[in-house]
């Protein structure tokens, strides 16, 4: 009789504890997304170089306005339509010639979605963020200002680097 009671109690206790097994999670699961946005490559094509024209001996400065001057260089960027791109350029370049003091050239850029120089807007920031057209193109005109007062005859060299990448 006593043994039966013990067994009965044990069964009851066991059932009760099992019924209250905690459902608090001792495991967890979660996700993280891996993202990549694939864009077409950007191409930069030089449509026309600077056209400074003849420099007069008395001339003190060369000034090519990228927005108005027909001598401005013209580049075309092409890539994924309607994508933002970031254009970075060297705004100030030392032009050198062996045996002569260097000259400082100040570059400025303007841009537009169409090949319409007069509609272009001067880049106020460097890098400048602009958007490719529906056709995936963007035009940039490059102007410069160069004091040639102390220049001597001959060729001066300097590189203006322009970089473009997707934003």
């Amino acid at each position, binding site marked *: *009789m006593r043994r*039966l*009671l013990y067994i*009965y*109690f044990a069964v*009851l*206790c066991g059932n*009760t*504890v099992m019924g*209250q*097994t*905690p459902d*608090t*999670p*001792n*495991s*967890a*699961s*979660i*996700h*993280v*997304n*891996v*993202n*990549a*946005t*694939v*864009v*077409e*490559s*950007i191409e930069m094509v030089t449509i026309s170089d600077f056209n400074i024209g003849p420099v007069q001996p008395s001339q003190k400065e060369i000034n090519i306005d990228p927005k108005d001057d027909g001598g401005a260089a013209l580049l075309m960027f092409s890539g*994924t339509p309607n994508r933002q791109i970031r254009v970075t350029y060297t705004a100030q370049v030392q032009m050198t010639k062996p045996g002569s003091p260097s000259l400082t050239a100040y570059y400025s850029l303007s841009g537009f979605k169409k090949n319409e120089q007069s509609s272009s807007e001067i880049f106020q920031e460097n890098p400048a963020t602009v958007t490719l057209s529906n056709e995936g193109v963007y035009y940039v005109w490059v102007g410069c200002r160069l004091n040639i007062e102390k220049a001597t005859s001959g060729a001066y060299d300097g590189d203006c680097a322009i970089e473009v990448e*997707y*934003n």
Partner: protein
Amino acid sequence: MPNVMYKFLKIALIFTVPVVGFSQTIQFSVYVQDELVANQESDMDFASVVAGQGLTQINIGDQGMGVFSVTGNEDLDVIVTLTPPTGNQLTQMTETDVIPFTLEWAYANHGENNINDAVYVTGNSARFRMKARGSGPPGPPPNPQRSNYTPKDATAYIYIFGSIDVGNIAPGHYTGTVTLTVEYD
């Protein structure tokens, strides 16, 4: 016949009396298991890549690294399993093109989100203590689980990085899902 009736009564008493008494006299306690909480701190993002760019890597600590956090009993070991995207690929909704993805990961279990504490993992699963022991001889064993003791929690960080191989594929947004599963060992 009377003898048989007597035995029947005894059995009936055995099964009825204890039930009445049990609810008033039996005490027991239940230890509630420690909770594990996993959070996503940041997605992994390769940002813009150019079609045909080839192998593009996000290293640990780079911008674009994915981060999970796991919070639980600092004394206990956990098993963390990462499941990479199906086929180890990032896919796009409307295109059949895919980007092969190689998952790499590490964990930091010193209680801080600090990649300098990171332990690199080979394979998709790792077992570690929620809070790493300091240097020196091993400390005492963990406090036994009991009802009047609340263990301290610690947060471990899981860093997700790796590479993609971008071929000449259609432009667009490609995505995949890495699933983290963590459980007490």
